[in-house]
């Protein structure tokens, strides 16, 4: 009898090799003329969230008052990362700083798109999927905006930017 995906939620796996693998995938994409690598990475993140949420979700409804804790929980439980989270209310931004991003560790001169695009898209999709099912439905949502800094690109940490909407976009 093989493992179930639910059982996998309870265990851990080492990222060292697969992290390198993502950048070899990016090179493979580039070599074959794929230009929308960022979009493809984001699609990967969304698909991960789509399946993952069937086995675990942090809470039943997400709004502005709990989104910080939800993000901290997602990063901790899925990625084993302790992140710092800041709000910029004027621009409606959420800025997540991860000093130990599981998908970025070494700088690659030949890489322009950081793999934490996958993480940002996954987190935003998680929020969307949780609220889609919430009763009463919450209109709060996140948009993965940009990877402001990444260790892959030579920065000291990874900074993922999200824009939040309190009404459906």
């Amino acid at each position, binding site marked *: 009898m093989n493992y179930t995906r639910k059982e996998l939620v309870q265990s*851990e*796996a080492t990222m060292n090799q697969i992290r390198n693998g993502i950048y*070899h995938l990016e090179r*493979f994409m580039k070599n074959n003329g794929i230009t929308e690598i960022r979009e493809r990475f984001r699609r990967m993140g969304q698909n991960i969230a789509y399946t993952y949420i069937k086995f675990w979700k942090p809470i039943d409804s997400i709004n502005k008052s709990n989104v910080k804790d939800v993000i*901290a929980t997602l990063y901790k439980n899925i990625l084993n990362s302790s*992140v710092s*989270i800041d709000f910029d209310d004027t621009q409606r931004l959420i800025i997540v700083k991860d000093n130990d991003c599981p998908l970025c560790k070494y700088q690659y001169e030949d890489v322009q798109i950081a793999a934490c695009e996958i993480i940002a898209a996954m987190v935003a999709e998680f929020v969307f999927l949780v609220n889609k099912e919430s009763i009463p439905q919450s209109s709060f949502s996140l948009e993965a905006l940009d990877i402001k800094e990444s260790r892959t690109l030579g920065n000291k940490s990874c900074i993922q930017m999200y824009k939040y909407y309190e009404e459906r976009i």
Partner: protein
Amino acid sequence: MGAVQWLLKKITKVFGRSTNSLFYTLLYREILKEINEITENEEDSILILREIGKKAATESCERHSGVFKWMPGSPKKVLDYFELLWVVVFGKELAEGDLDYEEIHKEGSKYNDYIIKIKTCPICAGYGLDDKDTFDFQKIKNVETEGFASGLTGMLESVANFILKIKKNDYRINIVEQKCMAKDEHCLQFVCKIYDTVEWKELSSIGVQDRLKSGVKFEEIEEEEIIQETKLDIIDKLQEVLSLDKIEDLLDQPLEGVKEKVAEIIQDKLNMEPAHFFDYFRNYEDDMIRIMGFLTIHLLNEYGGFVEKLLNNETFAKIAGYFFNQLKEFTFLFIPIDVINDYHQLLISFLDGLAPIEMVENIRKFSGKDDIKFIFEGAQMALENLGIDFSEIKENIWEELRKERENGLISSEQSMIDKTEEKFPKFIKIIQELLMLFSEILTLPVRVLISESHYGLKTAVNSIVSEEEGLFGRIKDRVDIIFDYIQEIRR
């Protein structure tokens, strides 16, 4: 399992960057799907996934090549270490009895072939049940094409061959996934074949690009030249040395005897001078001491896995965590600094003459307190490894008693402890402070007792003839009996 294999497995797990296994598996799935988006050919996608796995593992091995110098240098031994390879690649231990091993005799060849069966495959877990599991294995018609674990197989093959290369062995291993659970087969099965230089070159002569039917471009890894085999195989020889009976022999002898014995073993078994051996740890002296703490906990656990079993229970794990933290704090309270410094001096005396002067000097710069701190850090890593989540343990046990947050979310606020502390009833704080005060007062007689027994023991050891002989054995017997009782109670 040999001590070094066991140690490497633990260290690999502790020092790797891990995430949740489901995230890993889904990311792996997405990589394959993205490859297939480009190739539009399932057989090619599986092949490219394998090659990406190979590249990824080679890159990782090259970064940490020092670690692999401790691995065995013959293909047969590398395969014996398959479980360790699995942990290096996947970071996840195989469940007991999950791995089956079969040797297939190969006429006229130095090495036989090997079939490795793994009953549970995390990569294939639940595959096909979700709308996003869109890679269709039914489209694969060629029976030679590997399965979902081809990327993992590529990683395993690369790590195995990297070890052989770094150990200057001229044989190489070809690992192929033969059965895949995502293809409705009952287990994950690998076939491992060992080739010499000529055969390996022949096998590698048909490049990946030539095997791809879809016309996509793939840059292959360039195989580096193979270096001729040498007789140096540190790890195999260390395995002989690090058996528990040898360690017990060493413990029975006083310092100079131990030093002589250690020097003899290093020269005899490793064909190297002790200074050369200890040179491996030069500038990593603190890590060497941490490993002592790490090993102590794991050696305790080796006795029937009792520690690990105990820590499987969340409540026991928390209690043990608090006890450990308390022990850390109390060590310096209860053990006089002179005693600690004496043991530090003992470590220096042990290394003096065996290790390079620079290393001894580096250790001399540490204080006895530093040694204890490093040992506790190592022990903490081992305890984390065995199930204690120290990140969940509050600053003190009283905070643990408070009601958990109702929504189960992790707070994003760094200062949450401070905030909740304000609300925390003051009288509990007073009790805590009173307890600490009593503990500190109580340390005084204990300090006197420890000092007395320490210096008493020193005198006894220095004037020893035979009275102490057999004491270690008797203690071991008693511990055996205690463990037997515990086992009976658990039954």
